[in-house]
């Protein structure tokens, strides 16, 4: 993809101006450093007050000009004698600036994107000077003639590949991990109990908005019926679908898996020290993701579901002072609230 982008950018520089779309897309995170400018646009002159700043990956981070190190996109400077499209990038690979140059001067459209690919500014330059168009930037069209205002935006073409792609704001594939503090309120035949504990998620993004989640959780009772001490270790496999692409976005999920449940029988009775079983955990829920940094996201979620006993072991029942014997480790309804952080590259 990087090679294709480079080639098309070079080709575009030699073709008639402007074939870009009116609504730019989010820059590609995988654009190679060679896409800074076409090879044919290599600097011809040396009198330049501007300097490129590169990321460790080799991509251009910024072009800074003058003694004040002011970004080139602000105009007023000449960057060598370049003619063509110049892209700068964020550290994570997303496009930061799209600069159109002619003979080293800004001449054409100049766009600035935020780290997730949203267009935050579009201005037009002519011979290094910013133009006050007084019209929305969507006026450019492929049929616009050179020399007219819109076409002045486009002395060089910007190929679709060079345009930022919104879907590419985050990697389509990737593995991540999450750590959550979970609390669950469950109700079974014996009563209602509260459990707290940590959870570890392993996430695999298989589509831009779809992730597979492997979750291992440890839950320990902190409140409930007297002497009801229980530990649950659910291991579930689930799907998570993110709704939207904003920095704070909701998601829905569903999961299924086994849950090892163990409870201590009170009274230090050697003949019956504890009871354990396997339950089937099935749940669905929703949550909210919010970006902390480029790779770290906080999340808050609510999962609702049930746990169902699946083994054939004799189930212990306890007769309360009044009423029929009740099962202490049986089917249950569970509501889980989770708060945590996740990391995805």
């Amino acid at each position, binding site marked *: 993809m990087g090679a294709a982008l480079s080639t098309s950018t070079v080709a575009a520089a030699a073709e008639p101006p402007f074939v870009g779309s009116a609504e730019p897309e989010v820059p590609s995170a995988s654009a190679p450093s060679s896409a800074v400018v076409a090879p044919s646009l290599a600097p011809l002159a040396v009198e330049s007050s501007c300097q490129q700043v590169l990321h460790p990956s080799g991509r251009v981070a910024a072009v800074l000009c003058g003694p004040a190190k002011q970004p080139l996109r602000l105009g007023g400077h000449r960057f060598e004698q370049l003619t063509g499209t110049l892209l700068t990038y964020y550290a994570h690979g997303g496009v930061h600036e799209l600069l159109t140059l002619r003979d080293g001067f800004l001449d054409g459209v100049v766009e600035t994107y935020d780290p997730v690919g949203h267009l935050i500014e579009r201005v037009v330059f002519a011979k290094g000077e910013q133009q006050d168009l007084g019209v929305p930037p969507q006026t450019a069209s492929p049929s616009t003639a050179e020399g007219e205002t819109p076409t002045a935006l486009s002395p060089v073409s910007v190929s679709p590949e060079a345009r930022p792609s919104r879907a590419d704001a985050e990697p389509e594939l990737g593995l991540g991990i999450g*750590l959550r*503090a979970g609390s669950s309120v469950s109700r079974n035949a014996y009563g209602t109990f509260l459990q*707290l*504990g*940590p959870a570890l998620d392993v996430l695999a993004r298989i589509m831009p908005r779809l992730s597979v989640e492997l979750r291992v959780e*440890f839950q*320990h009772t*902190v409140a409930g019926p007297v002497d009801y001490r229980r*530990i649950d270790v659910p291991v579930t496999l689930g799907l998570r679908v993110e709704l939207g692409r904003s920095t704070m976005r909701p998601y829905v999920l569903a999961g299924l898996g086994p849950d090892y449940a163990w409870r*201590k*029988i*009170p*009274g*230090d*009775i*050697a*003949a*019956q020290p504890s*009871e354990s079983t396997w339950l089937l955990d099935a749940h669905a829920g929703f949550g909210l993701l919010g970006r*902390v*940094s480029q790779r*770290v996201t906080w999340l808050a979620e609510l999962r609702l579901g049930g746990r169902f006993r699946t083994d054939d072991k*004799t*189930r*212990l*029942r*306890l*007769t309360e002072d009044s009423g029929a*014997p009740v099962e*202490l480790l049986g089917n249950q309804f569970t509501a889980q609230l989770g708060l*945590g*952080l996740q990391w995805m590259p």
Partner: protein
Amino acid sequence: MSNIKTHTVALLFALSGVVGCGNAPDDEPLKPRRAAVLVEGCTLDDWQHATLSAVETTQVLDEVVLRCLVLRQDGSIAPTDSAARSALRTLTAALQSHGYQVGLAVTAQTDDGVDHTPAQLLGILSDPSLRSRATSELVSLAPSANFLDLALPPLPDSGRGVMTLWATELSAALRPMTRLGYFAPPLTQEPSELAGGGAVDLRALAPSFDRIRLLTTDYSCCEQVAGPTTEPGWVTEVAQFVQNRIGAVRPEIDITLPLYGVDFSKRGQRPVSYLEAIGVAQHNGRQIKRAPGGSLHFDWTEPSGAQHELWFDDAAATIGHQRRFDPSIDSNVGILYYGLGAEDPALFSELSRRR
């Protein structure tokens, strides 16, 4: 950010709690007391034999009482055949070789193994010839063991004089050749309201015996409400009452702790062993509960729908009972563990650890 993560992880683990932090076992030594165990019968099964042969058991027990001899309606004492008596002598010798003092306890039953009714027993003891025969047979059996105990079923209140009389006769015939003991009901008052309690004149009986074993068992036998087989407060009350009645030195006093449990239902009460109780609980899927007094219990339902409530003690419960009455009962009061074979298999090793 790293601080946030660190604090988050710390909080998670703090909230998770600590698993398995139960109470530490109570390993404090118990008050030293002489201890005996009662075996129902004249023979030992393999389990009982193994238990009595174990080093831990020999460290705990001083005496073994075989509830073996039977006073019959004709005044004879079973077993009567020479082979059985020979086997009994062999058994007592074997037990003595383990360091135990071995005693034979005498009960009174019909040939089909049912206790004599109070009237039947009164009839036997009221007949001087039958009483004399019984006395002479006990004299002949005395060399087989270290001591003899009377463990008779209840007499009617009118048998008070006869009982005291026979005790005097036995004492004269057997002592000091052997030690003589008496199984007394758990009296807390005189005259007693217990079945057979009215026939027991403690002050009159005391001079005739070396040991009085107070049957502080079946605490919940008679109130139509299921409950524990013994209770430390009650045991203390009985022991203190009897000591006050007869003096603290002679005869010696033992209290009794049952090793068996009791299954209560509308059909009546049935003694059950610890292992049977555990089996019933497991088979019926019942969680066992420990009562505040330490005893274990659960209820269960027969396939026919009959309701049962089962109470029993494990090693922790029995040790707990002792620990509760230890401060209140003198150390010269011994313990008779009633029903060898019905106990929690861990009992004697646990008791040994607390000597």
